[in-house]
Structures are given as C-alpha cells and as structure tokens.
C-alpha cells in the first residue's frame, strides 16, 4: 500500500458543551493513502459528515473537536497536525491541500456570479501573483477537464443543469491540485445516469492527477463499485474497515452485513430482504457496550457490557482489514 496522505488519530467531535454534549464522532482512527478512494458509509446521524467537517476544521459551532490529531503529509516536507494550524496557515491549507465538495453542491455556487468569476476567485485568493489572463486560462482548462465546453465560462449557475453545476464544483475543487478531495454525498441530488457519468469521470481524473478521495455516502452499493477501501460508521465509531471487495464478499460486522442486505439487487435471484430491525441510536442516550447491540441479530453477553475495539480480525485476510465486534475479538488494536 502507498504512503499515507491523511491520518486521523483518535478524533473526537462533540456538539455542545458539558453534560449536554452529544458525542458525534468517537475515537476515530482512519488513514487515507495516496491515490486511493476511501468510501465512508453509514446511516444519517452516524457521524460521517461530522468526521469530514472535523478533519477539515469546518465544524460550525456548537461543534467542537475535543481530542485527537489529523496528520497531513504534504508531497514534500514534514507531516503536520491540521488541528494545530493557525488561522493564517489554515487559510493556506484549505482548498490548496484539501478540497471539499458539499452535499447538494449544486446549491453551493453563488447564483449572482458567473462561473468564471467563481472559478478565478479561488485562484485570486491562493495565487495572488497569477495574472488575470493566466487565471482565466486555468479556469477554462479545468472546465474542459470536467467535460464542460469552455464557452459556458460566462454562464450563471441557473443556466446550467444540476449535473453541470456539480461538475463545475468538482472542477473548482481540483483547480489548485489538492492532494485530498472530500466528497460529501456528491451525487445524491442527481439521477442515476448522471451519477454514473460524474463518478466515472472523477475516477478517471484521479488516475490522471493522482489525488486521493474520501467519498461519503449512504449508498453502499455505489461505494463497493467505486472505491478501493470502505470504512463503515455506526453511532460515531468506525465499526469496520476493509478493501471494497472484502466488504462486499464477506463483511464481518453484523451491521455491515445488514447494510449490504438492505439493497435490493437488480440482477440475480429475487430474494426476501429484511433490512435492519429497529432504528438508528439516539446519540444523546447511546446504548452501553457496542452501540449496535440492541439491533444486532448476533448479540451475546459481552456486547452490552464492553465496547469492542477496532482491530485486526483473525481471518486469513486479517492484516488488510479491521473490525470492531466481539464476534471477531482481536489482540491487535488499530491506532
């Protein structure tokens, strides 16, 4: 496996302060390697978006990072902790090193400015010594890269379709050639046909430009197809992390299995599916022990008492994956 580019260590994020605080992300350890697509899956409320905002320091109050480290490895030079950057350093870091494409990105463009203005604004802020014409040339180049004709430069966002706006956002995210691109449900507002086109294009661009992607979605079947590794979150913790094929063929955690069994298949035999009984946990009153145990079909005594740690399972492909479940006890915790 290639070098890490982003390492998250014991990250904790809370909303609110004191006793009222809700712990949305709990002791998360996650490593993103250079050039890979890491999928982050989970239900709403599982903390996946909070994790993304936490590691880029975009959390809006009352969200607070209460502990942990986010180590960023630049292409050259020493690794540094993103959480320790000053405001000034952070301004330089954002977008140039990590870019984020938000959920409903089509609405994150400013409706009163032309596409060209918004694309060149990024360059104006980060590359002040670039000339006006060079900025425009670069913006035009980016649009071409994401498959939009350069004559749409002077269009306003409302003149573009949803898919095109999403492409503009992806182009804007890539304009400074960041090492990490975080995509928070980038295609949920789009149709399946457009979704496939945009993701296909993104994967192709990644091969060409070599950035890494953190891809957040609740659609596990999409992740299995498009990502290299998948991490599954439940109740603020990562419960399983493995190569995409391993998750699909033989998921170890009962929650991952349940999630995979929640998607009706388009091919193969029609089978009865049940989904997962019960409803997602309330972060204010988390169950003791493993937070999945009230819904888990395989729960036994240790599950309600002790929190399982994320570690290498004893399976043959153990070294490449980790799981937090008492069914697969581990001697080798991760992190």
């Amino acid at each position, binding site marked *: 496996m290639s070098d890490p580019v982003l390492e998250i260590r014991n990250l904790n994020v809370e909303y609110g302060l004191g006793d009222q605080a809700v712990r949305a992300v709990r002791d998360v350890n996650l490593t993103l390697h250079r050039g890979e697509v890491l999928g982050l899956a989970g239900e709403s409320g599982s903390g996946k978006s909070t994790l993304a905002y936490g590691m880029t320091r975009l959390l809006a109050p009352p969200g607070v990072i209460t502990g942990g480290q986010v180590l960023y490895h630049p292409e050259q030079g020493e690794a540094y902790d993103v959480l320790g950057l000053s405001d000034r350093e952070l301004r330089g870091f954002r977008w140039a090193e990590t870019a984020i494409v938000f959920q409903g990105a089509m609405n994150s463009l400013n409706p009163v400015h032309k596409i060209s203005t918004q694309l060149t604004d990024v360059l104006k802020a980060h590359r002040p010594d670039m000339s006006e014409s060079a900025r425009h040339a670069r913006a035009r180049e980016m649009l071409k890269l994401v498959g939009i004709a350069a004559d749409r430069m002077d269009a306003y966002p409302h003149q573009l379709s949803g898919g095109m706006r999403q492409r503009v956002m992806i182009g804007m995210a890539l304009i400074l050639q960041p090492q990490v691109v975080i995509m928070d449900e980038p295609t949920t507002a789009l149709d*399946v046909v457009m979704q496939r086109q945009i993701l296909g294009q993104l994967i192709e661009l990644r091969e060409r430009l070599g950035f890494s992607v953190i891809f957040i979605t609740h659609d596990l079947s999409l992740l299995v*197809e498009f990502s290299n590794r998948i991490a599954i979150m439940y109740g603020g913790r990562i419960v399983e992390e493995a190569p995409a094929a391993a998750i699909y063929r033989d998921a170890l955690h009962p929650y991952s299995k349940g999630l995979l069994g929640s998607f009706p298949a*388009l091919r193969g035999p029609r089978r009865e599916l049940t989904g997962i009984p019960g409803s997602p946990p309330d972060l204010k009153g988390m169950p003791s022990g493993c937070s999945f145990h009230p819904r888990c079909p395989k729960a036994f005594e240790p599950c309600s008492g002790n929190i399982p740690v994320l570690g290498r399972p004893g399976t043959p492909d153990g070294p490449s994956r980790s799981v937090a479940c008492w069914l697969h006890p581990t001697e080798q915790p991760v992190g």
Partner: protein
Amino acid sequence: MTSIPDAKAPAAEVVLEAISLTKHFPVRRKLRDLFSHRKDAVHAVDDVNLTLRRGQVVALVGESGSGKSTIARLLAQLYPRTSGDIRLHGETTKVKGGAAFRRYCSQVQMIFQDPFASLNPTHTIRYHLTRSLKIHGNAGKTAEDLDRALIELLERVQLTPPERYLDKFPHELSGGQRQRVAIARALGARPEALLADEPVSMLDVSIRLGVLNLLRDLRDRLNLAILYITHDIASARYFADQTMVMYAGRMVEGGDSETVTQSPAHPYTRLLIDSAPDPDRLAGTSDAEGEDAGNGEPPSLIHPPAGCRFHPRCPFAMERCRTELPVPLEIGDAPGHWAACWLYDQNEKAEVAQ
C-alpha cells in the same frame, strides 16, 4: 416470495385507471409574447395510461422531472388534469374540491415522500390519526370505538405497543416510525388505492426495506392497489408486480417487473439499468461501456423534441424516431411487456432484415 401475477391476468379488479392522462402547466408569458399567439406550456405528463388493480403494486420509475410525481398528484386529484380521464371503479371522476373531493380521497389516499414535513409538528400521533378516522367516518360512535380503531391502525403498521406511540409528537419518532404513522393515517380512510410518492427515499437505508415490506404486507392483507413511485429501479423489481418506466412525461416501457428489469426493451430503460450501482462491477473493472450512450440530459419539456422524446440521446435513433411519435408496441417475450420504441415495429424489423 409472492409469485408474480401474469400482467394480463384479468383476475384482479381494476380500482383506478388513467386514460390518456395529460397535464400541461402554463408558462408565464413574457411581455413580447402578448402580441403573438404563442402559448408555452410545460408538457409534464402526456398521454399516460395506467391501471391500478386490487392487490397489486405498480411501480413508476423515472428520473426527476420525468413527471412521475405529477401523475400521483393528478391521480389524487390535487391538480386538475388538462385532458384525459381518471376512472375510479370504471366511473369517470369529476372532482373540484368539497364533498366530492372528500368522497374521492376516502378511496384514494396518498403517502408523501418526506414524513418530516407531512406530519404537523404541533400535534400528537393520536390527533393525526383521529382526524383521519373522523373525517372519513371510520371513528365509530363512542370513545371506546375510537380507541380501538386507533390501536388497530398502529398495530397494522407495526408500531407496537400502540400505547407507547399514541401520545408522542412527530419529533419524538425516527424517520421510519414517522413514515409508518403517515401510512397509518392514510389507512384511517380505509382506502382502496394508495399512491406512494417515493415513500422511502428520505429514510435511512437500513429501514427502507422495513417500510417496503410493510406496504407489501398491506397489499396482501387489505388487498390494496398501490402505486409506487421511485427512481430506484432495483427497489421496483423487489417490491412491485408491474413496472412502468417514464421518460420526459411519457411512458416508454411497461410490463411485469421481472421482465422489465431483466430484459429491458426500450433504450432508455437499458440506460437506466446500466447506470444503477452494481456491486458486482468492482472498482477498476468498470468498463467504458454505456458511457457514450448516456451522454446528454433530459430534454426541455416546454419544447419537447418531435417524435420520440428520447431520440437526441438514443444510440439507436433512426430517421423515423425524429419525426414520428412511437406507439406502444408489444415486445413478445412476455405477456403484457410493451415499449414505445420503433425498434420493435414489425415493419421496421422487416426492412432491417432486407
């Protein structure tokens, strides 16, 4: 698993029928248009035929903007139709609100997409369900009758024990529970047809199937006719007896769900199925196949393309597709399977063979 009924089987009674249903929304005229005779309209739904039978689920699949929600709203009589006919038990319905609308909607109920918006946050579950029962005259005479009816409703949507849910407010329930309350409220009218407009797309993935299985259970036990609107063709295959595919306001293909999803005939249906996420196609192995075919976007519905509305995107488009509107043609691989595509015209096939 329930067996898939023959799409042509006359066994089940027809509850609700749409016959060449059409809806055009007028577009606001600009000043310069005042002097011309031009009257623009969005052709949201054009010439749609649909039949809902007792005890069957019909799925309506299409992208956003294809007109599927407009059909649901037309069938629920929330919009007046431009032309065509809606028949309830074979009788033409003319509903303009008031008592006629009440009478109609006690037989045809709608479930909306977002249970967070469709329940009033200031009222308890008891209030929501009581209103539905009282308005449609199913509350009985005494307080005990009402209580019994309330409990029965909640039990029917598997919210048990009912006492625990009756006096809660919507915000105290999860999304799946709220959608169940919305279903219970629809059942309070004792309807014969349910129109479910994307009933699970706002819910968490792990609980979607629970709600779909509940709806299927209701279909079997109460013999309901259900229209299931979705953009997820895989769930249509799982849940529906028949599947209809819409594109840009027109029906392009229909038949029993298994046939439509396993041997799609219309090029648009094929594109839709090829685009659906498929875990068996693992990262890296995904080929470029179909990527060219899918380029382009749905057309403007103000000035839809002449002929087949899919022809600008269709890889098999012929001269005829650009000028002539395709009629529904029998495919012949399974009874009741049809597609509105000239590729399946016998004359056309003969010409190709020559």
